[in-house]
């Protein structure tokens, strides 16, 4: 292992010293859609030569800036925190800004790489190219009462919360509302009425917050027919989460709370 690390290190150093980077040539196959031009989406290939350690978002920018200025996708912080650029890359939901080209490039066959496919996330209406209508997703988020409901008098300083109580819902506060989980869920694909994993994660965040007094109400919302019982535990959501949230586990905790009626 140590040799491999050294090799990698010195290769990087050599590249830097010579001022060159090791570019590879590959194709980006993007599912393009412009409702003003055609009723159906089309796959379009773009040939790029780039350092494979760059991000897929960099590849999309290269297409937009140098080849076709009309290519449309959402992105904002570009550092994996804001959750704007979830898309299906080689058939799997990822954030374009957290995906390195080398990790989706595969191995070359006769010196040629298979194209990297990029398409919008599934289950939401495509508006243009990689941009989908996020309204139903945010509506499900709003439907689970995603805000603290605390009874009693407002404190003048902070409410106290023990380190243990705080740790209980730490994982589900990491959500960036990117929709990677919800749009990877086969139940959601078949029925857009299902709340979807992201909304349940955001309900979990409050149900298990020791400061909150509306856990019962949220559990009732999630007990409805479009709620947690639709989950088939396929773990797609957990695999898709760019924040590493244990989404399926959070859903299971909500189900258990519904059965035992204990939070």
């Amino acid at each position, binding site marked *: 292992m140590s040799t491999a690390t050294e090799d*990698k290190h010195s290769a*990087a*150093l050599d590249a*830097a*010293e010579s001022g060159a*980077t090791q570019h590879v040539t590959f194709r980006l196959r993007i599912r393009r859609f*412009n*409702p003003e031009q055609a009723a159906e989406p089309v796959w379009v290939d773009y040939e790029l030569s780039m*350092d494979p*350690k*760059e*991000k897929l978002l*960099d590849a999309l920018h290269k297409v*937009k*800036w140098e080849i076709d*200025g*009309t*290519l*449309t996708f*959402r992105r*904002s*912080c*570009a*550092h*994996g*925190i*804001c959750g*704007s650029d979830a898309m299906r890359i080689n058939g799997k939901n990822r954030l374009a800004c957290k995906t*390195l080209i080398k990790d989706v490039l595969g191995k070359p066959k006769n010196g040629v790489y298979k194209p990297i496919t990029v398409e919008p996330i599934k289950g939401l209406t495509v*508006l*243009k190219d990689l*941009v989908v209508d*996020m309204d139903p997703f*945010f509506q499900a*988020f*709003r439907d689970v009462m*995603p*805000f*603290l409901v605390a009874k009693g008098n*407002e*404190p003048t*300083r*902070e*409410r*106290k*919360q*023990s*380190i243990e109580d*705080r740790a209980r*819902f*730490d994982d589900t*506060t*990491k959500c*960036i*509302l990117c929709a990677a989980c919800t749009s990877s869920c086969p139940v959601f694909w078949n029925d857009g009425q299902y709340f979807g994993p992201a909304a349940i994660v955001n309900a979990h965040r*409050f149900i298990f*917050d020791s*400061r*909150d007094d509306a856990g019962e109400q949220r559990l009732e919302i999630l007990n409805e027919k479009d709620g947690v019982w639709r989950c088939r535990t396929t773990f797609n959501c957990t695999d898709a989460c760019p924040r*590493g949230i244990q989404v399926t586990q959070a859903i299971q905790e909500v189900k258990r709370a519904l059965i035992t009626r204990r939070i």
Partner: protein
Amino acid sequence: MTEAERHTYDVVVIGAGGAGLRAAIEARAHGMRTAIICKSLFGKAHTVMAEGGIAASMGNVNSNDNWQVHFRDTMRGGKFLNHFRMAELHAREAPDRVWELETWGALFDRTKDGRISQRNFGGHEYPRLAHVGDRTGLELIRTLQQQVVALQQQDEREFGDPEARIKVFAEHTVTRILKDGSRVAGVFGYARETGRFFTIEAPAVVLATGGIGKSFKVTSNSWEYTGDGHALALLAGAPLMNMEFVQFHPTGMVWPPSVKGILVTESVRGDGGVLRNSEGDRFMFKYIPDVFKSQYAQGPDEADRWYADPDNNRRPPELLPRDEVARAINNEVKEGRGSPHGGVFLDVSTRMPAEEIKRRLPSMHHQFLELADVDITAEPMEVGPTCHYVMGGVAVDPDTAQAEDVPGLYAAGEVAGGMHGSNRLGGNSLSDLLVFGRRAGLHAAEYAGGIGADRPVVGQQAVDAAAEEALRPFGLAEMVEPDGPPEGGGPPENPYTLHTELQQTMNDLVGIIRREPEMREALQRLARLRARAKQAVVEGHRQFNPGWHLALDLRNMLLVSECVARAALTRTESRGGHTRDDFPTMDREWRRKLLICRLAAGAETAEVTPRPNPAMRRDLMELFDAEELQKYLTDEELQHYSSEDAEGQE
């Protein structure tokens, strides 16, 4: 006549980051019908990127802390150029804003007795930053977003319409503030998705658009940071101030490419991380300026004792204010002791056990491992200065956040100037957003509420002119003939190419170290770019057309970049986020002057003029030792204070 969707509100807030949302919540709380306009989806604002925490002297970890100490640190960090009143209000009100955020549900790391935990940060005398691991900005935005949802559900119960009093126009961009005489009358812009124009008639507009970092090549800023609010204010007749002060965060990743520009939060240094050069030397001890000598450890032994026993030891120099650290790194690299990719090494791996690193800096650890194959528990990071924040902004009244000269216009957060002087301390940004976001919302609401029947009106002529300006890049496209050049001279220009050239120009010629001939060159290049930007041509239609959006953003970036370059050329000293190679020292005379940028009606570039910096109130001045004041104030000013002193004793 332009076809534009028309709305009427009492208060319009442009920007949905921390300042914008806090302003909107306050305006709504005062009964105003409030519109929030943001370029991205709701909840994706650049505030999410803030990692370190919110500075507030709650004194939960060290009870010696109070607002006066926070005020002092802020003034020192800004090299006394800050507007003292803004720094005072900020230090006084920050604790209440943090507690308020907690009661709205924000998650915080806790002390053993369940209070909000606070951490050390550069330039802050005591542990002061309330935080959630290293995702404090994300939690701040999410909590405010949740609060907006809660208010909308209240309104739904009360009025049957969740958007009765607060509506979010997501993925909308404002291109003009509209006026009725000298007063604000509303805004004009376009919906990014459909490309359709809209106007909102409103007597009060709050600018909360953030910064200008996308004018620089090496930046941590997100795509929204094109100086929109700065430019909108200028175009509406409001002045900007302090535009020469741009903060370069000292520790942005320089390698590998996948993480280039990502910031390594200062808390890595607050928790024990150290900076070393290529010779393995912990070099920061060489760079402690005289003004800070009494507060920072002179050697590694004392510095290392500080982490466990801060009361009896002085702080490590890695925690000097950002401008000092950035300059030191720049100098090490310039003198040939840099890392292979032009930075220095930031090492936490040899300073604490791997498990501890993972616990304290989980997102950092995860991010670098995943994106860069860099395990920060096992190897150092390669870091260097990265454009991060602009101290300059709209000149506002400190108490009300109202922009000078334009009744009805307000500004809060990064787009406002004055609060941070020449250099912002880490952690003071999130608190700034909450303190002045609230104030802007409050005073905008009072102004709009008090206007009665005398509401300003949006004139059709102004709407038509704004629409014509916005459509120009398409008009040019139609003019392009296959056989010849378009009208107006010059070949058609690709907006992306122009943007890249602008970024390179600002980075190379008006970057962290500045020289007169280079800035003159920059101004010439900017003038050429401005001419070429008029030939920017876009393909396609108005629906979700990113090329068109950038062509419109270019106007703002060029306007603001000129302000930065002109102000930087005018200020012949080095202070905070403005370092002149040809004027390397701080000049006490220059502290008395602020540089103001104005755009005359119909002019293409802003004029820069100096004006006096208001003198600090006496009770605030007394918070400092006379010896320290001598470093910043002229003899004349000091005499003035001591003569007042004599009068006071009579």
